[in-house]
C-alpha cells in the first residue's frame, strides 16, 4: 500500500539536496550529488530513523563512464526501501564517508574501497576484505578485471599486537567455540575482558564476481544458496525476490507460500542448532543433545518438503521447483505438533538450569542506542529493544497471510537473545501451520518471462540471524551487479560493545549470541618458539 506521507518527506529531502527521486514499487531511489551525500544520509538515518542495511560500490563505466555508490536504508515503519545513490568520477572515484552520521556504514565503505576502488574522505581507511599482500591498485569488482585473474600470492606473517598493559588471549581462528574460522583478540585484565579486536575477511570467496561473470540468472539461485550452510535458502529466496522485483515478475502465490514455509523451517532449524551450541558453550551438554534431537525432526521435515535435509535447492526465478502434496502437508502438520510439544518441554527444563540462567542473565549486554547506531539485525536487535522484522515491516513471499508476533526484549543480554530465538521458534511453527492450512492452488513456477537490463531490485529477507539483503542491477542474461550482505556483517561490530568488561568465561557465549556466520576460510595462528604469529593460508 503506497504511503503518500512517507513519500512526501523523501520527495522534499531530494528537492532540498538538489537530488532526483523516483519510486519503483516499494523502493524509493534518490540520486544526490556527492557533496550532499552525508547530509542526506544523516537525515535518513538519524531523523527519519531508517535502518542502514548496506552500501554497494558499482563500476558503471561501461554504461555511463562513472562509478556509483548506493547506500541502502529501509524505512521499516513506512515499509519502504530507500536507495541513496551518488555518481562518482570514472577516473578517480572519491566519495565522502557517511560514517560520522551512520556508524553502521563503516565496513561496507571499506569493502567498496577494496573491491571497487572507491576512496573515502573524512574517515580512517583500512583494508577490510582483501589480504594484505593483494596489489593496492587491483580492485576485483571493477568490470575491467577478469574474474579468473589471480595475482601471485605471497605468504605473510603478521604479529599479534602485544599489549604491555593487558594480557592478550587469542580466540580463533580455529577454536572449539568457533564453529567457523574467525579471529578475536581479547585483551584481558585477570579474567575480565578490557577490549576486543576482530580480524576477518581474510579469504574472500568472490561469489559476486563469479555470478556477474560466469553464471546466468537461474544458476545464481544455487550459488546464492551456498553462501551459507545454515540459512542458504534465505539467500536464494532473497536473490530470487530481488531479481523478480527488478523484472516486475508476478510470481505464483503458491510458490510464495512454499518459499515462506521453507524459510520458516530453515529458521526453526537454525534456532535449534544455535540453542544446542549455546547450551554446549555453557557446559550444559544434556540441553545440547536434546535440542539437537528435536532439530532432527526439522531436518526430516525439510527432506519431506524439499527433498533435502539442508541446502534445499528449490528456488528459481519465477517460483519454486518442488510442490507440496496433500499427503506431505498432513505429515508436516503432524511433525510440527510433535516438535512443538517436545521443544516446549525441553526448553522449560533447560532454562531452569541454574548455571544456564545465571550465565545468560546480564552478560554480553548491547544497549539499545548502540543497537540502533550500528544497525544490528535480527534477534540481536530485537533483544536490545529494536522492534524490527522484515517479515512484518517489509512483507515478502507469503508472510502477509500469516499472523505472528515479533518477540522484542529490552534487556539486551545473552538471555534476551536466547529468549527471542525461543519465542521465534514457536512463532515459526505457528506460521508454517497457518500457511499450510491456507496453501492456495495453482502453478508453482512462471513459465515464460524476461528480465530487462538496467533495472534495480533490492530485497531484505529476515534470516534467522537478521535481515539478509541482496541488491541487483540487472544485466544481459546475468546481474550486472549483485551485492550480498549477510546479517552477521552488521552484527559483528556490536561484539566489541558486548564483550567489554565481561568475564573471559562468557566470551564464547557472547560471541555465539549473535549466531555468527563467518567466512569459511581464514588465517591460522601458529606458535613458533613461544611467539604467537598469524599466517595467511594461501593455496
Amino acid at each position, binding site marked *: 500500500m503506497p504511503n503518500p506521507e512517507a513519500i512526501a518527506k523523501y520527495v522534499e529531502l531530494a528537492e532540498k539536496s538538489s537530488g532526483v527521486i523516483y519510486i519503483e514499487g516499494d523502493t524509493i531511489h534518490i540520486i544526490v550529488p556527492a557533496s550532499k551525500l552525508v547530509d542526506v544520509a544523516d537525515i535518513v538515518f538519524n531523523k527519519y530513523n531508517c535502518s542502514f542495511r548496506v552500501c554497494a560500490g558499482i563500476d558503471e563505466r561501461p554504461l555511463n563512464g562513472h562509478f556509483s555508490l548506493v547506500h541502502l536504508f529501509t524505512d521499516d515503519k513506512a515499509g519502504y526501501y530507500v536507495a541513496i545513490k551518488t555518481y562518482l568520477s570514472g577516473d578517480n572515484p572519491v566519495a565522502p564517508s557517511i560514517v560520522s552520521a551512520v556508524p553502521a556504514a563503516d565496513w561496507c565503505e571499506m569493502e567498496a574501497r577494496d573491491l571497487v576502488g572507491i576512496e573515502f574522505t573524512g574517515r580512517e581507511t583500512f583494508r577490510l576484505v582483501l589480504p594484505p599482500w593483494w596489489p593496492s591498485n587491483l580492485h576485483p569488482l571493477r568490470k575491467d578485471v577478469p574474474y579468473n585473474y589471480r595475482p601471485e600470492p605471497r605468504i605473510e606473517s603478521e604479529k599479534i599486537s602485544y599489549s604491555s598493559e593487558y594480557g592478550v588471549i587469542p580466540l580463533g581462528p580455529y577454536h*572449539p567455540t568457533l564453529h567457523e574460522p574467525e579471529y578475536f583478540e581479547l585483551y584481558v585484565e585477570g*579474567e575480565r575482558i578490557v577490549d576486543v579486536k576482530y580480524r576477518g575477511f581474510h579469504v574472500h570467496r568472490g561469489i559476486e564476481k563469479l555470478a556477474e561473470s560466469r553464471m546466468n540468472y537461474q544458476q545464481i539461485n544455487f550459488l546464492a544458496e551456498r553462501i551459507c550452510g545454515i540459512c542458504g535458502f534465505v539467500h536464494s529466496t532473497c536473490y530470487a525476490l530481488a531479481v523478480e522485483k527488478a523484472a516486475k515478475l508476478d510470481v505464483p502465490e503458491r510458490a510464495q507460500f512454499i518459499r515462506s514455509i521453507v524459510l520458516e523451517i530453515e529458521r526453526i532449524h537454525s534456532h535449534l542448532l544455535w540453542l544446542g551450541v549455546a547450551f554446549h558453550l555453557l*557446559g*550444559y*551438554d*544434556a540441553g545440547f*543433545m536434546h535440542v539437537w534431537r528435536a532439530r532432527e525432526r526439522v531436518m526430516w521435515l525439510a527432506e519431506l518438503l524439499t527433498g533435502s535435509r539442508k541446502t534445499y535447492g528449490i528456488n528459481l526465478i519465477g517460483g519454486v521447483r518442488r510442490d507440496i502434496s496433500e499427503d506431505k502437508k498432513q505429515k508436516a502438520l503432524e511433525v510440527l505438533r510433535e516438535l512443538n510439544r517436545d521443544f516446549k518441554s525441553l526448553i522449560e527444563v533447560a532454562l531452569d538450569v541454574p*548455571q*544456564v540462567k545465571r550465565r545468560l542473565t546480564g552478560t554480553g549486554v548491547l544497549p539499545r542506542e548502540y543497537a540502533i547506531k550500528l544497525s544490528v539485525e535480527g534477534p540481536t536487535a530485537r533483544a536490545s529493544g529494536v522492534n524490527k522484522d522484515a517479515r512484518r515491516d517489509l512483507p515478502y513471499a507469503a508472510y502477509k497471510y500469516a499472523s505472528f508476533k515479533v518477540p522484542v526484549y529490552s534487556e539486551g543480554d545473552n538471555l534476551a537473545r536466547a529468549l527471542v530465538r525461543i519465542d521465534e521458534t514457536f512463532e515459526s511453527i505457528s506460521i508454517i501451520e497457518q500457511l499450510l492450512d491456507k496453501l492456495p492452488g495453482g502453478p508453482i513456477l512462471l513459465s515464460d518471462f524476461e528480465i530487462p537490463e538496467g533495472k534495480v531490485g533490492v530485497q531484505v529477507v529476515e534470516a534467522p540471524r537478521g535481515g539478509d539483503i541482496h541488491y541487483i542491477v540487472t544485466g544481459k542474461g546475468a546481474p550486472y551487479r549483485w551485492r550480498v550482505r549477510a546479517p552477521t556483517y552488521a552484527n559483528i561490530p556490536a561484539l566489541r560493545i558486548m564483550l567489554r568488561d565481561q568475564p573471559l568465561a562468557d566470551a564464547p*557465549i557472547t560471541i555465539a549470541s549473535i549466531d555468527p556466520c563467518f567466512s569459511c576460510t581464514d588465517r591460522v595462528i601458529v606458535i613458533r618458539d613461544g611467539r604467537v604469529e598469524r599466517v595467511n593460508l594461501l593455496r
Partner: protein
Amino acid sequence: MEFSLNYILIPLIAFYAIIPLILDGLERKLKAALQSRIGPPITQTVYDVLKLLLVKETKNQPTLPYVTLTLLSSMVMGLLALYYVTLYIVQGDIINMFYALALLAVFTSTHTVTPLLVPNPYSYIGGMREVMLAVVNEAAFITSISLYTIILQKTLVERVTWVSILIMLLVAIVAFISSYATSSRVPFDIAEAEPELASGVFIEFSGRILALNIYNLLLRRLAAKFLVLAPTVILISGHGLISLILGLLLTPLIWALYATIAVVLGRSRVDIAPLTLAKIYITLLLISITGLLVITHA
C-alpha cells in the same frame, strides 16, 4: 581371625589402578543414555588411554620431563591414598585415614600445578582456575573428612545422640559436595572449560602425557569418592572386610550419581564457583564445629 590385607595387596592396587577407567566408561555410557545417545562402549576409556600411551607427544616441551615426573608421582600418591583408606576401612586405625587424606592432598596439589609448567595462556588460565577452586575446596574436603572420621570414631565408642548424628550429617554433606567439586565435573570443570579455554589444562598435552593426565584425573575422582565413602560404610557395618566390599559396591553407584548430577547442570564461572562453595562450606562447617565443641564440653 583378623584378615590381613597383605594377601591381596597387589591385586587390590591393580584393581584400584584399573577401576577408574572402567567407571569412566560407565559414566560416558550413562551420560549418553541421559542425553538420548548410544554412547561409546564401557571399555572406551581403556582403549583411549591405551592408544594415547602408544602415541608420541606431538610437541616436545622443554618442561616435559618435569610434567611427567609430577604426573607419575601424583599417580603413585593417588594409589597409596587408596591403599591407606582401605587399611582404615578394614583394620580401623584412624591414622591410616589421615595418611590417606595427606596423600590425596599432595596428589591433588601436584596434579593441579602441572598445567602451570606449560607455556600456554590457556593452560595458565586453566591452571590458575584450578588453583583458585582447590584453595577453597581442598581445605573443606580435608576438614570435612577429618571431622566426619573423628565424629564417627566417637559415635562408635560413645553413646549416639541426635546432635552428633546431625553434625555428622552436616559434615558428610560438605564431604560429598567437596568430593564432587574435586572431581572436576560440571559445573566445576572450569579449569578444562573446553569452549573458552580450548580444553585449558589439557591443551598442550598429547600422547603419553595426556594419557597420564586423564588417568590421574580419573584416579583423583576415585580416591575422593572412596575417602568420603570410607566413614559412611564403617558407619553402616563397622571396620572389616564387609565394609570394604560394601565400599567397592557403593563406588560405582556414587560415581553414577555424580555423573547424573553433571548431566543436569551447566558450567559455572571462576568468579562464581569458588565463592558459592566457600559460602556453603563456611556455613555448614561452622555449625558442625560449634556443635562438636558443645557436645564435647557438655
